[in-house]
């Protein structure tokens, strides 16, 4: 940094002064509210635990989506703006399958459980294929031309295409879908309550529903599987090598295009999984749900250090917990300001995010 801004290095240390001002601002304006917040937390510890659990659950699926951003960025340094909308299409796809299998809350578990696993796998396959095709048709052609901006702009374009696909999806009225799309194409679609909502911690005064556990459980399994895949397998090693130096990896005999495809496939599969999980967890699919979720997840990826897998998980968890605590102890309408305020502060001190490091391997 100092070499590119010699003025900063030689003259007045504006950067340090800025940091000191931020600290003074925080101390002046945040001390009293923080004390109030801590008091409120101590006054009702069960509520605090519940909010932390909500943050954990939301954080788990945010991390799943964030990984898609981070995987792709780590390898091709492209911010895949269409990723949030891919997640939305995952939700629509799984809702359609739920309709096709005519799953209802009355379906016995012996049938519902395996079918839900089928829906999950099919949704992951669908979004993975879609993501891979988009890479092949749109991004790969632009990779050689030396401008990262072109790929970025086409990612924004794909995002619009996906969003409109979601809109069109709402118009589908095939009889075999059993009316899951409701009567209005653009309106939010309602998922049947297929995940049980019984309180697993009944009697403790804290609520942790079975569906929260399902979301956390499936997310953790997928996150762990991905981590093991990238760090322990041959293909994972190829991915890491491609991320570090694409040319050198190619020279070593790694098929770079196939490895990049793999990153898109994995990211897409995770987006599909979270689309289905969130659809069933929140009970709603709507064509513009990808934007908000994508923004949150991208923030999580940046917070943790974009390109870093563990960082994305950490970032997702932090965003989930911060949002829940802010909803409870500050106010719902301030939550976005709080989340992005914290992001700004962290980026001021650690421009590469919490775990990001320019020299370390990126995927």
């Amino acid at each position, binding site marked *: 940094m100092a070499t590119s801004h010699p003025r900063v290095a030689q003259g007045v240390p504006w950067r340090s002064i800025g940091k000191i001002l931020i600290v003074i601002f925080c101390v002046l304006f945040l001390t009293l509210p923080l004390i109030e917040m801590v008091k409120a937390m101590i006054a009702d510890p069960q509520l605090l635990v*519940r909010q932390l659990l909500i943050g954990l659950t939301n954080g788990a699926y945010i991390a799943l989506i964030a990984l898609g951003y981070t995987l792709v960025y780590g390898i091709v340094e492209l911010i895949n703006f269409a990723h949030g909308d891919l997640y939305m299409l995952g939700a629509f796809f799984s809702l359609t399958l739920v309709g096709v299998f005519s799953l209802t809350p009355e379906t016995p578990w012996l049938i519902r459980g395996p079918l839900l696993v089928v829906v999950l796998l099919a949704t992951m396959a669908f979004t993975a294929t879609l993501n891979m095709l988009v890479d092949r048709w749109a991004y790969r052609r632009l990779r050689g031309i030396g401008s990262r901006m072109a790929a970025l702009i086409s990612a924004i374009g794909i995002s619009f295409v996906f969003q409109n696909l979601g809109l069109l999806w709402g118009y589908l009225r095939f009889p075999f879908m059993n009316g899951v799309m409701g009567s209005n194409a653009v*309106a939010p679609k309602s998922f049947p309550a297929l995940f049980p909502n019984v309180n697993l911690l009944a009697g403790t005064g804290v609520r942790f529903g079975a569906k929260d556990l399902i979301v956390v459980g499936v997310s953790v399994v997928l996150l762990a599987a991905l981590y093991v895949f990238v760090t322990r397998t041959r293909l994972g090693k190829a991915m890491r090598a491609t991320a570090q130096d694409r040319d050198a990896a190619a020279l070593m005999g790694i098929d770079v295009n196939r490895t990049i495809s793999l990153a898109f496939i994995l990211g897409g599969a995770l987006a599909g999984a979270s689309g289905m999980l969130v659809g069933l967890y929140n009970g709603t699919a709507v064509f513009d749900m990808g934007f908000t979720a994508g923004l949150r997840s991208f923030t999580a990826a940046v917070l943790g250090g974009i390109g870093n897998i563990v960082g994305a998980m950490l970032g997702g968890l932090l965003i989930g917990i911060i949002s829940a605590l802010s909803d409870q102890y500050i106010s*719902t309408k301030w939550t976005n300001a709080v989340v992005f305020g914290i992001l700004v502060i962290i980026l001021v001190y650690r421009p590469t995010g919490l775990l990001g490091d320019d020299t370390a391997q990126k995927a």
Partner: protein
Amino acid sequence: MKRLSGFLILLMLTSMIASCGSLASVGSGSTIKIVSSLPRTGSSKGQTDSIVNAIKQRLEEADYKACDGAFTIVYEDMDDATAAAGKWDAAQEASNANKAAGDSAVMVYIGTFNSGAAKISIPILNQAGLVMISPANTYPGLTKPGKGEADEPAKYYPNGTHNYVRVVPADDLQGAAAARWAQSLGAASVYVLDDTELYGKGVADVFEATAKELGIAVKARDGIDGKAADYRALAAKIVAAAPDMVYFGGITQNNAGQLLKDIRAEGFMGKFMGPDGIYETAFIEAAGADAEGVYATFGGVPAEKLEGDAATWYANYKATYNAEPEVYAVYGYESANVAMNAINSVCKQDRAAIQSAVMGTKDFKGILGTWSFDANGDTSLTSMSGAQVVAGKFEFVQPIK
């Protein structure tokens, strides 16, 4: 850069020529145009379909003629929503208003559905001297001094005269009636939420103020982000506050269904009430099974409970369109009724004369009874109803005051 600006100028010229073209083509003296601007895309479509049907129904009864055939009525149904937004859109509403203002044959503008949209089009139409009749806006500040912000409603009327009327009672009545109904339903404490839009916040403000006057404990007041994925943390906060009722001032399109789902999933067993913004099928579809038992208030009485002329209207509507009208259909009819009455009394293609005829509507025998507009442009009707979701449908419960 030079080429780009050249292109832009060309684009502007083309659009100017295009709009001039449309001006010239409809400028004939014997045609009077009535336009409506309503959200025709998105989940409000169910409501606005029946409003537009009712407007057409009134015009068909007159055979699209006014002043004993001297004028032909042309009706245009404009959409102020976009698919991308899924609900009304400020830019679209402004463009509709400008289009109507620029078309010299347009004498009456029926709209809008959402109060936030009215805020944008009233000043545009005011400067064009075009009268606007809303079948559905309920935000008080649009017409009533002292009920909204300090500079309302004057800021909407830059030329000083009111050009806006509404045939529905405003939210200073609805919010207050809702609070009184909440009390009679046994709610001793409420948690008040709004969607931070003009309409939603307005009605929630009145509800909160009236609730406090009535001695109902207001546990807290929060605004929600209508685009958020879920409201689970807020729901946990509400459950911890343990109110008897949650009141949500807002519209279905700002995620009312998701909000209700999350509150119920979090274990809240109390009542949930909203204003007319959630009184529609789209809300029940979005909330799914959780919609059961939800209370909603709205101005007027439901179609199937109408009496006299309105009952005849209801029967005709069902016969013509083979569907149940949604709650605002009757106001759509009455809006067109007032417009036709004014045109028939003026019999001139004269915006100013038609505007003053509409504004001066007195002891009008409409299908809602005999009523008048006051100086602000508000109806003298004050009847309000309460409804509840029973078996997946809003059912009328009782008239409320």
